[in-house]
């Protein structure tokens, strides 16, 4: 018979048993695994690197103000960051390299394994293609988010719709997908068939790229600012409800006339979602600071972290799926070893 002590241990959230939290004292804007470290891009302009399961930390001063946006770059060896100081930097545990040093806020950055990267400031997107060519593209308004597709198309969420930029040819192809209002996040499906944007009107809007056919997925109580594709590309997870909302994309018509699957319901809003890179499992972060892992096939939920009132801002697995790192608005960084928990 298990001892009472062991039974009590089972109810502890995973981070209390197999992880650690660090108080960083400033807003954690983004957390990714960079060159084996859990790296946090912070509101004070620093990037802090933590080696999982070790006491080793490195702090790299990168920006003069807050880091506003960040993306993994250079085969996960660097962090690409944009700040309110007008700088775009590439940051590794070895130091920071400034790519550009302007005056306007950098609102969005994105990068692609080919070496292409992009950033947006004011009404302009700057795109650096893998072949080294730089281009400027005028937007309808400020960009809220940018993301490269697997094949290297750049999707930009902006005012009045989504812009998709193809970089395969010498002259970039620019396609606009209009939908009135503000767009907050954007994701292109792994098979390059659909582009999905999150709208300020608490909905998702999806376009099929083959024929521009569009569909509206509403019913969210909040704004679905966080989007994540499953490893097999069949599901899109979204925040913005009191559960994680999963839309099926395996069919010809994507989610058209399909109902969404909802998992990990609590009484508070889901603000961040991230699929595990291998398993059919997601991390789900809430506005009250709770973080859970939920399995797609049976809906089983395991608590990673108890709520403390400070919203989860970002959470991501490392490439192997062994570690999960997360950050909160009030400056907590957490790292959990999931191999220990299995």
């Amino acid at each position: 018979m298990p001892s009472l002590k062991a039974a009590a241990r089972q109810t502890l959230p995973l981070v209390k048993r197999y992880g650690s939290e660090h108080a960083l004292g400033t807003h954690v804007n983004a957390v990714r695994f960079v060159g084996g470290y859990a790296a946090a891009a912070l509101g004070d302009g620093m990037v802090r690197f933590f080696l999982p399961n070790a006491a080793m930390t490195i702090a790299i001063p990168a920006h003069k103000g807050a880091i506003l946006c960040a993306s993994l770059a250079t085969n996960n060896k660097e962090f690409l960051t944009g700040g309110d100081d007008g700088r775009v930097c590439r940051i590794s545990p070895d130091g920071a390299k400034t790519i550009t040093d302007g005056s306007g806020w950098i609102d969005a950055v994105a990068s692609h394994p080919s070496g292409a990267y992009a950033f947006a400031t004011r009404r302009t997107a700057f795109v650096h293609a893998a072949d080294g060519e730089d281009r400027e593209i005028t937007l309808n308004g400020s960009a809220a988010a940018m993301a490269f597709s697997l094949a290297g198309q750049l999707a930009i969420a902006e005012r009045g719709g989504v812009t998709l930029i193809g970089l395969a040819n010498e002259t970039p192809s620019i396609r606009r997908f209009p939908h009135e209002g503000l767009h907050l996040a954007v994701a292109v499906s792994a098979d390059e068939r659909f582009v999905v944007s999150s709208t300020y009107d608490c909905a998702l809007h999806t376009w099929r790229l083959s024929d521009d056919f569009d569909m509206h997925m509403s019913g969210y109580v909040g704004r679905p600012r966080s989007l994540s594709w499953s490893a097999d590309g069949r599901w899109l997870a979204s925040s913005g409800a009191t559960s994680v909302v999963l839309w099926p994309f395996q069919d010809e018509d994507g989610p058209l006339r399909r109902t969404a699957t909802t998992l990990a319901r609590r009484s508070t809003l889901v603000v961040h979602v991230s699929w595990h890179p291998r398993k059919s499992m997601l991390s789900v972060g809430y506005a009250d600071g709770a973080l859970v892992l939920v399995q797609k096939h049976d809906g089983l939920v395991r608590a990673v972290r108890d709520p403390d009132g400070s919203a989860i801002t970002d959470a991501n697995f490392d490439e192997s799926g062994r570690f999960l790192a997360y950050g909160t608005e009030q400056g907590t960084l957490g790292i959990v070893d999931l191999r220990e928990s299995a």
Partner: protein
Amino acid sequence: MITAARQIPVTLLTGYLGAGKTTLLNRILSEKHGKRYAVVVNEFGEVGIDSDLVIDADEEVVQMNNGCVCCNVRGDLIRILGGLMKRAERFDGILLETTGLADPAPVAQTFFIDDDIRRRTKLDAIVTVVDAHHFLEQVDSAPEAREQIAFADIGLVNKCDLASADQLAKVEARIRSINPFAKLHNVERCHVDITDILDRGAFDLDRILEAEPGFLEHVHSHGHDDKITSLSLVSRQPLAPARFLDWIQDVTQRFGPDLLRMKGVVAMQDDDDRFVVQAVHMLVEGNHQRAWRKNEPRHSRVVLIGRNLPGDVLRQGFEACQA
């Protein structure tokens, strides 16, 4: 431990061209109050702004797709406030200056609509600066000048030294004909005690109309030929809750595009709490506020400010809410 994030107050500084908004901004920034402000301005003017943290906005008004034609938000503000919250520990408040021709409604509506913004920030008050010397011409020729007055929680009648006593009296009467609840201050070169303009809680339902103690007693004249007028509805009898809530929904839906602001304190039947309500266009919110005090008359009063509001229809509808 559960900790709630601090809500950072945002003060909107508005006023017609040349009224003295930037003077006010610098006045606030140069006072020795020990507080740090982030400043959001529309364009860097010739007058420098004395702050380390100045952000350039571009007044990007975006319509919401919620079926409400008058529901606009400020896209740039959503982005800027989101960015500022990433370093919220570095300042105590946000001062937002609009252009002289801006409509304050999309700013106010952004705070009504956006829960993410409301969780971390709050609209503290709309401060409208008025040029005492030129106001009477401007208010007749420029709809923007009238709207800025209609939205004001605090009115600063500036350049008083350039206006005669008679002119000042006319300016005040004209402001009152549009907006009965704004707190007015006569100033020169925007010299005002900053406690009169900051931390007013003008949009807190908890403090609504408490910040303007004269509100319930205020008697004003209307019937001016202005298109923007105010209407004050009073009931000495308690109101039936369900009927009142239906009525206020109906009013904001029907007259929303023309209804600029509404504030009300209501005595509901069989309810010992004051019920408070406010609206900007079609966006309305209400709540129980606090218990009525012993010596406080349990009267209901709703003030509406808007364009061409049908006084008779509104008065009849309000009276029909009496229990």
